[in-house]
């Protein structure tokens, strides 16, 4: 149902589907139609024009009824095309799955064989096969199928390799399944969509190839008609009686076109990457659709977020990823944003520079002021000038953010020259200096390394160097050390801390780790379900958390050096972001919950001149002691 719905959204694919259904229907009912015998010659009646006498499409050079030959021939071409696609898919997929699943030497031997097959020009190979087997429709079918096996084998092998190394295959082995059973029940169901996609995009091609062989006289033998042989026989009368070639030619065009349009639609609807919206290229900055008046800036902070709301609109659902976040960052200050997955911390950070992908992201309310300038709704050119120059990002996975095909030096030079036109030599010198400043040993040599030649820690240093390239005022670091080992994390954190002090950088540090926040940040904001639930100086919050969520989250984190013990847990799960409850989002998991918590809008209110909490029954140090 879902698949058909997706397919129907693509108008061209839908048109292809309708045309194909009509053609298949015609092919199926051909024997029932009152048609003239397609193979009976009547030379007296040759080369009749369409609609002359009772021949609707005219007759060919032997006086045979063209409509009848077209329908019978089309039926045959379709059958041969589908049959060869099916044969090629079954054999190719089997080869691909076996090679991909077993890997190693099996894979090597099989795939080199397939490579050899692919090294021949396909039509030459098909001709050679037909030459060896002799002309005839069945032999043409075998030839076309054989020629297309490598395509399937290679495609399917690639997918199988990635599936065979997934953990669920290991889990199946541990469940006592044999290899054959794993291939059939674990691997195959995950490969079938790829087989269908590959088939839907090649059937048209195979019909064309069969027609090609028949055209050369190697496929269907006279008097039997298929589209290719009709075209071949009409060749000599191309100028004098063009309708004899136009009729089968147009039919081939319509069939192949319809199948290809349909095939592309099937591929787009089935391919998970394309389905998730990767086909629609994101806009250069996040869509802003604010209905309420834009809040004015109240402070002279470097960065000020005011009532920011970012949502994801997809399939009629609205995910309220960020539901009204306000945050101030002063120059030279390090502010931590702490929260669990889905709390909206990364989306908040990306919204600052309009980096949330649209579609599906939409900023629906609020304002972001950077050095007094409103950024939401600012023209792309303004944002582009700020991105990477005044405001830079460091992401979690430097492997994913560095381009694998360019040396790190080249990428650094590009980052510098994007904002400050300078000679390549100057930029190169600056890049070496940057690598030195992030303490990469042997920077002159390392600048020519590719990202894959570096360790995770070294790559993250390059990521930091790139963020520093234009001496930004603000760095937004989104879990920069989560993917790193503890010893490397300690190095990177102390590096960031030094850089912040030396250069007077402001940093927004996003993390889920209280230890990291405690060591690095002056202030911290705790996020839950898209909103800040508590905000204030780091020490104060860590010493006496006011929001029950902060308190309970901190209790969950095991601390090193306390030995074996029972750990505290928060019961339940965070709320779903497209169905947020009334009142406090944490109410269902909270041990202090009361009826008042489940109604209205609970605001973030100050508890002293530095701290604020979004809770009507906050924890107090006195009450903690009483408990």
């Amino acid at each position: 149902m879902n698949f058909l719905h997706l397919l129907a959204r693509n108008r061209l694919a839908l048109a292809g589907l309708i045309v194909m259904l009509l053609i298949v229907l015609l092919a199926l009912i051909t024997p029932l139609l009152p048609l003239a015998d397609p193979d009976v010659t009547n030379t007296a009646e040759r080369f009749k024009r369409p609609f002359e006498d009772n021949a609707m499409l005219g007759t060919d050079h032997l006086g045979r009824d063209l409509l009848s030959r077209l329908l019978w021939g089309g039926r045959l071409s379709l059958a041969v095309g589908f049959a060869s696609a099916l044969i090629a898919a079954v054999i190719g997929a089997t080869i691909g799955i076996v090679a991909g699943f077993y890997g190693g030497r099996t894979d090597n031997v099989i795939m080199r064989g397939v490579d050899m097959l692919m090294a021949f020009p396909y039509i030459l190979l098909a001709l050679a096969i037909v030459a060896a087997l002799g002309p005839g429709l069945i032999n043409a079918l075998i030839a076309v199928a054989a020629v297309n096996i490598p395509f399937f084998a290679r495609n399917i092998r690639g997918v199988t390799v990635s599936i065979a190394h997934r953990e669920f295959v290991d889990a199946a082995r541990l469940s006592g399944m044999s290899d054959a059973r794993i291939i059939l029940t674990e691997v195959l169901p995950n490969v079938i969509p790829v087989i269908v996609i590959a088939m839907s995009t090649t059937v048209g091609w195979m019909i064309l190839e069969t027609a090609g062989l028949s055209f050369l006289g190697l496929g269907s033998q006279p008097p039997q008609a298929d589209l290719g042989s009709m075209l071949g026989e009409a060749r000599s009368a191309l100028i004098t009686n063009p309708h004899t070639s136009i009729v089968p030619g147009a039919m081939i065009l319509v069939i192949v076109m319809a199948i290809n349009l349909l095939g592309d639609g099937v591929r787009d609807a089935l391919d998970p990457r394309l389905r998730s919206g990767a086909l629609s290229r994101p806009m250069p900055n996040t869509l802003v659709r604010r209905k309420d008046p834009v809040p004015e800036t109240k402070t002279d902070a470097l960065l000020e977020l005011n009532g920011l709301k970012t949502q994801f609109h997809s399939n009629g659902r609205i995910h309220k990823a960020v539901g009204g976040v306000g945050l101030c960052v002063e120059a030279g200050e390090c502010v931590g944003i702490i929260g669990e997955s889905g709390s909206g911390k990364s989306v908040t950070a990306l919204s600052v520079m309009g980096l949330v992908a649209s579609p599906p992201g939409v900023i629906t309310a609020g304002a972001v002021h950077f050095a007094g300038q409103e950024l939401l709704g600012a023209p792309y050119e303004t944002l582009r000038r700020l991105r990477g120059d005044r405001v830079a990002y460091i992401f979690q996975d430097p492997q994913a953010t560095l381009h694998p095909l360019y040396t790190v030096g080249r990428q650094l030079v590009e980052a510098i020259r994007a904002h400050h036109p300078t000679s390549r030599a100057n930029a190169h010198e600056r890049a070496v200096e940057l690598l030195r400043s992030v303490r990469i040993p042997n920077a002159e040599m390392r600048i020519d390394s590719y990202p894959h030649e570096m360790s995770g820690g070294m790559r993250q240093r390059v990521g930091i160097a790139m963020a520093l390239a234009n001496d930004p005022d603000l760095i937004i670091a989104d879990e920069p050390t989560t993917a790193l080992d503890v010893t490397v994390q300690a190095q990177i954190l102390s590096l960031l801390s030094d850089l912040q002090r030396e250069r007077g950088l402001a940093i927004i540090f996003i993390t889920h780790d209280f230890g990291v926040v405690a060591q690095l940040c002056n202030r911290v904001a705790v996020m839950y379900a898209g909103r800040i639930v508590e905000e204030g100086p780091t020490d104060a919050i860590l010493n006496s958390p006011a929001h029950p969520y902060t308190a309970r989250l901190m209790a969950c984190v095991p601390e090193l050096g306390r030995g074996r013990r029972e750990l505290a847990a928060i019961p339940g799960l965070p709320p779903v972001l497209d169905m947020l409850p009334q009142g406090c989002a944490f109410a269902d998991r909270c041990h202090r919950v009361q009826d008042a918590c489940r109604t209205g809008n609970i605001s973030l209110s100050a508890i002293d001149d530095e701290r604020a909490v979004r809770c009507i029954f906050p924890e107090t140090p006195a009450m903690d002691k009483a408990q």
Partner: protein
Amino acid sequence: MTNALKVSELSKTFAVGKRLFGPPQAHVRAVQPVTLTVRKGETLGIVGESGCGKSTLARMLVGLLEPSGGQIEIEGEPLDTANPATFGRKIQYVFQDPISSLNPRKTIRQIMEAPLRHLHGMSKERRARRISEIFSAVNLREDFLDRYPHEFSGGQAQRIGIGRALAADARILILDEPVSALDVSVQAQVLNLLSDLKAKFDLTYLFISHDLAVVEAVSDRVAVLYFGSVVEIGPAEQVFSKPRHPYTKLLADSAPVVGRPLTAPEGRETELPDPLNPPGGCAFCARCPRALNECATERPALARDGSNRMIACLNPY
């Protein structure tokens, strides 16, 4: 006390740069010969950083990877084959990524039935009974059984993964980073469940993680792995609070702790040794603040230090 698992001189070497004909270009020792015993009912924590060989070791222990040398004994019986089905009844594995360890195209029931059917050959009614027993043990509702893996949160999916491991009825579970893909608030739910199950079903755990605090909180003993070998092993409450091997100390000092000022516990330029070109002496020598001259040439053996700890170091703290 009886041993649940005994590993002697277990090692793994990978060939690098394989060719169609002829020998590979080089060999990498992912796991140096390791000798370990896990007592019945114990939780042995294994910590180490990426590339230290902890996952390779774990995969050998369940037969997913054939060891290059050494022996695995489970409850006194040696297991020589690398057939996961033989291992499956005695020792099971809980994967790091709960979602990707469940086949996206199978229902939870199909996933849960696999070990019951293939390892124990149970009939349909017995399978259904056993699954409902297991599901109540891991606190999952039975109406989850007909759903598909993508409908579950990480914490629920991990409980399904644990349930599958329990279904095999093995006495030993290898937990390979079972909570590192989970949020902190959910992490504790899973860890506490694991501890309940252990008491209830009399299980033995091998708990692998890079998170020192988690390992310390759940383990009886902790083994620290560096560059494929065990450098220190001892009671959980002592290993990180009074580390003796310089690497253990470095790990303990690197973990970010609330209330401790930020310091880089070692020089910022250091990197792990190159596996293709392993150092001759102690693998940690180049990073070690207490290295002696002989550390560069002599490889220290894991030796008992007079108490209940074992250290592989010539100049321990």
